[in-house]
């Protein structure tokens, strides 16, 4: 019975130790870029995050001591994300309602789900190409509308699939109880099912918005870019993400600095929206 207390043989100990070290090292390797990125963005961007940034247009390249900012990019991102949300949220939520309440497991509904999944796998640059074909070619020009449309195509599958999940979580007994009181489908869905699923739907909408705000590729050749204020939805528009792309490769340090400042703002928006989305769901879990 003495070997009940014998220690592990050295080979096993070594193996365990080596595996642990490797696993932790690799995990650290995964986290280092994140921390490095956040550090770089904050240290290089925050110093250039002045009040001008919110109010001024970008100064022409190379000019010094001219107030410079990217207010037009902030507005542009805001406007295009708003267009995207306005298009994709109603369409996505209605589609999800169909899939969860009416179509359920029918062949048509399964087909729709598959197509939505295909859409979600489309690279964002291809979505940009699509929007280019739909708007830029026929209208012979770049526009905020085209950019907003491209973003909406990216948001649509996220909203649809996540909303369907939230709707399916509502217990069926609630629908039956509402029907047992004589309410029809429309009323039951709106007052009972959607109301109950609302936090989840809000979360997925926020996550989709965060994603859209950060997208660049779909905007590069749909909304293009602009150094000026937005002139209507049919003209090109600046955006935070395209500004970062353009100014990052600029030889002028002032523009590089603006790029970093814009990066801080963009990351701030994205992280904030993500956290807000999670907070919404966590808050609701405390009520039964």
């Amino acid at each position: 019975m003495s070997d009940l207390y014998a220690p592990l043989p050295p080979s096993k100990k070594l193996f365990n130790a080596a595996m642990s070290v490797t696993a932790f090292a690799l995990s650290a390797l995964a986290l280092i870029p994140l921390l490095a990125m956040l550090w770089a963005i904050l240290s290089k961007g925050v110093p250039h995050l002045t009040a001008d940034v919110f109010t001024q247009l970008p100064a022409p390249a190379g000019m010094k001591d001219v107030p410079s900012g990217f207010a037009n990019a902030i507005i542009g991102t805001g406007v295009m994300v708003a267009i995207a949300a306005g298009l994709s949220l109603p369409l996505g939520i209605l589609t999800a309602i169909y899939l969860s309440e009416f179509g359920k497991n029918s062949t048509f509904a399964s087909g729709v789900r598959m197509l939505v999944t295909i859409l979600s796998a489309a690279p964002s640059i291809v979505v940009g190409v699509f929007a280019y074909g739909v708007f830029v070619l026929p209208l012979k020009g770049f526009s905020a509308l085209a950019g907003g449309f491209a973003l909406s195509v990216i948001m649509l599958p996220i909203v649809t699939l996540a909303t369907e999940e939230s709707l399916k979580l509502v217990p069926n007994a609630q629908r039956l109880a509402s029907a047992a009181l004589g309410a029809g489908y429309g009323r039951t869905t709106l007052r009972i099912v959607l109301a109950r699923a609302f936090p989840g739907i809000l979360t997925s909408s926020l996550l989709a918005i965060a994603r859209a705000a950060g997208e660049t590729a779909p905007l590069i050749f749909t909304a293009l870019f602009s150094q000026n204020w937005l002139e209507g939805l049919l003209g090109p528009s600046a955006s935070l993400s395209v500004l970062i792309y353009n100014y990052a490769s600029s030889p002028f340090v002032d523009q590089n600095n603006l790029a970093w400042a814009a990066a801080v703002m963009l990351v701030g928006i994205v992280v904030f929206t993500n956290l807000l989305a999670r907070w919404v769901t966590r808050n609701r879990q405390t009520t039964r």
Partner: protein
Amino acid sequence: MLPSSNPPPSNSLAPSSAAPNEGEQPPIPVMHVQDLSCFYGRHKAVEGVYMDIYEKHVTAIIGPSGCGKSTFLKTLNRIGEMESDLRIQGRVELLGKNIYAKGTNLNQLRRQVGMIFQQPNPFAMSIYDNVAYGIRTVSRPSRSVLDDAVESALRSAALWDEVKDNLNQSGLDLSGGQQQRLCIARALAVNPKVLLMDEPCSALDPIATMKIEALLHELKNKVTIVIVTHNMQQASRVSEYTAFFSTDEHRIGQLVEFGATSQIFLEAEQPSTRDYVAGRFG
């Protein structure tokens, strides 16, 4: 093979021998079930039921599990077909009109024949809004009319005194027994003729159960009640009529016997009924 209830069983339409209380008027059927069979897709779950539901009385439906009691109950307000591919053959009549006729307004039907489910399922809204939900579905009464209707329903459900100061509290914050009474109030608010209850106390503790059973004694003066229960003692306590369901060897549910509760429990005619109430199987 268990003898199925042949039409019409003498004990279901003979008021004088079936009336549980002496000196009362003969009971009037508010619902009539004629040769009802229930199918899930191609699979027959219940066969050949003939039964009357007498108004302002409590009818209990008892039987071993899996014998189609709930399935049968859910055909009475056509809720069963909402949650599965349930379909029926035969007739179910509410006040003489076939509820399965083409063109039946299902919403209206369900307001007339309400339902209480096994798990209390109040909506995620205030107590007031829960009770007002059914009323608001068809009308927009003034606030004072609505207040009165809500109070009346909550009183009928013996819940008013406990919640009258907190009507804006969420329905989900109540205890299990209170939630079930809230569901009852909610159902009563639309003035149904019949209230179907599918094992309403099985998820509740004994004290909450007692309160609901006491409630049933008063409720039956206002609304007809049909209650499915797997608890025989409960059936004998609360009901005046009892229907005993069981399965044959093909696992198809059948109405074995129907009659006054006292008769079913003390001198049932069918041997399987006698065995069941004596606890010899179940």
